[in-house]
């Protein structure tokens, strides 16, 4: 068998040639960020934003930091300004039903001017109405009406009084009313004087008094009617005066808004209300008791109430909006989305009115686009439901949550709903999209379009230029030092490393952005004009160093032999596997010892990790695959007569993944065959039942982990790592590893199946079946078969002797 050759330094790291770039520094670039390599997502965005039907809202899915928001903002930045500016909206008092404020729709920019006009109107009314009502004309007319009533009353009574006086009968005021009595020289007759009169005279007086009394009663019965008539006349007068004063002011406003039917309708009801309630504009003397109660009392409170009554609460003001609005709601709480009805505390109770209606993001984005982070939306109580309700009903209905759930018991409002025409764009991770798709039937109705963002960009020249423009835009936006092309090239290389693929670039813009900022810091510290490749390298190294405490502790323990890892000798049933640790998001690789022991048994492979419940399901699956491989290779003709046990030595936490399964198989083959394994190799790669070695993740970190340990102990030139051949394209190794390989001090060997691997690890060929169906005895397989036969014999002997004993 021809063994695979070691990888060349060029295969370990794909450099980005700075000369590929046609610019010297990012100062030469001014192109905006484009969603390069995101064609699928971009098509979805274009489709969703273009289609006008209900429910075609967008869910942009992909890992955080992949620039979903930037891409969408970029798209909307070009399309939204072309769209029509949506209408303004405001809430006004509903004079008939104050609990149901009315929503007014106005052309963009008109709501603010209407609000100002109304404010000026109310201010003017506080001047013109008192002036009209204090005018001499009004006073004279009012006095006339009152005097007419007084005269009417006085004339009627006076006539009666006069009639009485002719008969010597006086009309006298008593504490509770009136009375008639006979008089003489201005004084009421004394009883004895009266009794001295003749009977006829007395009877006559009595009759006259009764007649006068009856007449008086009929006059008094009419007084309330006269009073009512007087009040009615005063009311009419007031109405006429108020109407005469108010109409020209409102007509002036009406002229400015005559094309807007809703406004003219509102102005009509407003005019009627002002005329009906003109007295609120008249200055009244403040009640001294009220003035003790602070600013809400007396004249001030009356004036304030009038201002509020006729105020325009502008909910949406698009006066300075260009095109369709694009709103990103950072805190999508329910009340921030659909708006809220606030309350103020007034003398110990909570009160509200239509001026306390607060807009939400849906109002601001109505007629345009609303971007929301899906995770934050789901974290806010009731917010997701409120958003769905608004989208489903196509209207924004403001409901106070506290009122809805009876948290407060106070008077609240039911504002007229506002029609909603909006595209909502949710941004979130794929898992969130999947969960919502499965568990929420409304979701797929309302968010019919998914823009699936790629994790990686192609590593071709377009991708590299995209990186350059991303760096340039960050530099421009945050006013950083410009990057020269070597620095850009180094960031591109780092992008490949992040993508774990030398032919790709990571689409995780956030990481690139961080690296740009960190590199700028080091360039600025060194007082450079431009950021160069060495600054980028310094930033990368510094970041690794900052998070290397645990890695170095583990390496230190290994060097002190607290963790046993051999990198020099040869041992049977023992191999160096490679594990990845990811504490706090920064991952690193480190070797771990895997051992295998065999004994007589019934052919099972015992995974000690699984037995103690420290192994994950994928790891257990890998070990079971080994049983399948061993069975197929060695137990076709007879059962396996051994039991093997496998363990990750000195592992005190769980083990997951199948990337060590090839290492476990090599350890098992070594243990069965008795061929020692070279400990200066480390192995990674999973294996299938046919013995093919398969790709794994984190190959760079794993290689570097073993390299760092070997380097700390001194590189001998024999040391190396066996990786699956299918992982070669993932290699973007550190410069020191590449250099060591170049100098022949370290090697990386791609293997495609276990036979290649075991030969490299033991120096003994794996062996193939000859024409007689047997493995050559001096091969690993041959040695294994011989050992298995030997064990089978022993087992047979042991079984028959125990059977004899039993008989």
């Amino acid at each position, binding site marked *: 068998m021809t063994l695979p050759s070691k990888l060349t330094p060029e295969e370990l790291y794909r450099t980005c040639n700075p000369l590929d770039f046609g610019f010297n520094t990012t100062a030469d670039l001014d192109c905006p960020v484009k969603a390069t390599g995101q064609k699928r997502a971009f098509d979805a965005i274009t489709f969703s934003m273009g289609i006008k039907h209900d429910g075609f809202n967008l869910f942009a899915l992909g890992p955080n930091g992949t620039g979903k928001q930037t891409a969408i903002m970029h798209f909307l930045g070009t399309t939204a300004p072309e769209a029509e500016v949506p209408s303004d909206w405001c809430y006004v008092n509903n004079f008939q039903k104050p609990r149901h404020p009315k929503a007014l729709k106005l052309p963009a920019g008109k709501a603010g001017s209407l609000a100002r006009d109304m404010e000026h109107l109310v201010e003017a009314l506080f001047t013109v109405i008192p002036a009209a009502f204090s005018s001499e004309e009004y006073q004279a007319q009012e006095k006339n009406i009152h005097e007419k009533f*007084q005269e009417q*009353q*006085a004339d009627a*009574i*006076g006539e009666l*009084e006069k009639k009485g006086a002719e008969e010597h009968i*006086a*009309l*006298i*005021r*008593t*504490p*509770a*009313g*009136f*009375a*008639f*009595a*006979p*008089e003489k020289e*201005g*004084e*009421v*007759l*004394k*009883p004895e004087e*009266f009794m001295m009169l003749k009977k006829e005279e007395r009877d006559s*007086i*009595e009759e006259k*008094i*009764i007649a006068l*009394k009856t007449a*008086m*009663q009929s006059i*008094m*019965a009419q007084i309330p009617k006269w009073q009512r008539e007087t009040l009615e006349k005063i009311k009419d007068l007031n109405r006429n005066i108020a109407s005469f004063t108010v109409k020209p002011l409102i007509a002036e406003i009406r002229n400015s808004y005559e094309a807007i039917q809703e406004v003219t309708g509102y102005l009509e009801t407003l005019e009627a209300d002002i005329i009906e309630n003109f007295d609120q504009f008249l200055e009244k003397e403040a009640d001294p008791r009220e003035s003790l109660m602070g600013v809400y009392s007396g004249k001030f409170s009356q004036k304030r109430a009038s201002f509020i009554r006729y105020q325009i609460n502008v909910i949406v003001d698009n006066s300075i909006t260009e095109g369709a609005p694009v709103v990103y709601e950072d805190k999508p709480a329910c009340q921030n989305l659909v708006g809220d009805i606030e309350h103020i505390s007034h003398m110990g109770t909570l009160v509200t009115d239509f001026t306390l209606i607060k807009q939400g993001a849906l109002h601001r984005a109505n007629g345009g686009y609303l971007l929301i982070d899906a995770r934050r939306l789901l974290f806010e109580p009731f917010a997701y439901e409120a958003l769905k309700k608004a989208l489903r009903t196509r209207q924004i209905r403001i409901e106070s949550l506290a009122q809805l759930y009876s948290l407060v018991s106070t008077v609240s409002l039911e504002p007229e709903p506002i029609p909603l025409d909006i595209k909502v764009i949710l941004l979130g991770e794929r898992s969130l999209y999947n969960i919502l798709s499965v568990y929420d039937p409304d979701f797929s109705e309302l968010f019919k379009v998914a823009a699936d963002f790629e994790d990686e960009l192609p590593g071709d020249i377009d991708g590299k230029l995209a990186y350059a423009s991303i760096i340039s835009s960050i530099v421009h936006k945050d006013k950083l030092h410009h990057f020269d092309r070597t620095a850009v090239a180094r960031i591109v290389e780092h992008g490949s490393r992040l993508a774990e693929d030398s032919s790709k670039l990571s689409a995780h813009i956030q990481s690139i952005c961080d690296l740009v900022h960190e590199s700028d810091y080091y360039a600025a510290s060194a007082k450079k004009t431009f950021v160069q490749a060495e600054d980028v390298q310094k930033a990368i190294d510094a970041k690794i160093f900052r998070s290397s405490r645990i890695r170095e502790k583990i390496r230190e323990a290994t060097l002190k032999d607290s963790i046993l890892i051999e990198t020099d000798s040869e041992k049977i049933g023992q191999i160096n596997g490679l594990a990845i640790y990811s504490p706090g998001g920064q991952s690193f690789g480190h070797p771990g010892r895997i051992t295998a022991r065999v004994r007589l048994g019934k052919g099972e492979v015992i995974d000690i990790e699984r037995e103690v419940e420290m192994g994950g399901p994928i790891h257990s699956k890998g070990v079971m695959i080994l049983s399948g491989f061993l069975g197929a290779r060695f137990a076709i003709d007879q059962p396996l007569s051994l039991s093997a046990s496998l363990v990750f030595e000195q592992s005190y936490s769980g083990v997951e993944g199948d990337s060590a399964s090839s290492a476990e198989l090599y350890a098992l083959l070594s243990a069965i065959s008795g061929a020692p394994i070279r400990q200066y190799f480390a192995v990674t790669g999973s294996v299938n039942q046919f013995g093919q070695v398969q790709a794994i993740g984190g190959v760079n970190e794993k290689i570097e982990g073993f390299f760092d340990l070997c380097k700390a102990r001194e590189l001998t030139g024999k040391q190396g790592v066996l990786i699956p051949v299918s992982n070669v394209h993932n290699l973007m190794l550190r410069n020191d590893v590449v250099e060591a390989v170049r100098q022949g001090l370290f090697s990386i060997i791609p293997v495609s199946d276990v036979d290649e691997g075991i030969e490299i690890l033991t120096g003994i060929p794996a062996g193939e079946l000859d024409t007689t169906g047997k493995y050559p005895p001096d091969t690993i397989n041959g040695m294994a078969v011989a050992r298995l036969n030997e064990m089978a014999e022993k087992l047979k002997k042991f079984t028959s002797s125990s059977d004899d004993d039993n008989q």
Partner: protein
Amino acid sequence: MSFVMPERHKSTLIRHIAVALDCSPHSIASLGAAAELARLLNAELTGIYVEDINVIRMADLPFCHEIHMYTSESETFDASTLERSLKVQAKAARESLLRIAENLMIRQSFRVSRGVVPEEVIAAAGDADLLVLGRSGRSPTCRKGLGSTARKALEEGKRPILFIRPGFSAKEWPVLVLYDGSEGSRQALAAALNIITPDITLNVLILGETHEESVEMERALSEIIALLGSTVEYHHLPLTSGKTLMRYIRMVDSGLLVLSDRMKISREEVHELINEIDYPVLLV
């Protein structure tokens, strides 16, 4: 032309003010004005309440019925109920006097007498330096002119006398004095100067027979008044009839009118003016 101005705080010294109280709106206004004046002049205030003998007599006439004001129902008089009503009214009048006296920190007294109202009021106010009356009282006809008590006081010659109507405050009213050079008008001017506070402008309407006489009267007055430190504005009108005066007074919205019925205009014309004019009047 020369004359001697009555010395301030001497001939027109007001130490005791009497006010007639019957709980009507006019009498409440009178009480307010009288109390303000009492405070200003540091005078004693006496409230006078007269139990109307005519009403008491009616209770003894079995065929007399009281017609209630707001129900128009009638019932016969009950002497004890009537007595109680009068007492209640007197008590209310006394309480309003006490309240205002306490607020303004003035001395007060209260008298209740029984008899024919106008005579009793005038008699009770006999020793007071100023009688304050509502222009009309509890008259059943709500007439516009002076009430019976005011008319009686006017005719009886009780001076000085202040007729009040609701809607004016003694603290801030503008004051207009009619001055024609007569002894009566000089006394009116002296009285006006006595009752105004320094921040009130005194308007003097000079009624001269000729223009020269008017100018001369103004010059003479300004020399004397300047010594007293009051702010005075002079207006001129040819000596004329009461009706023209009334039109002028209404036009300038005079406020308190101070005049005498011993001026060059006839006494009857002055009384007619007082009866017709709808402003408070101080008759000296």
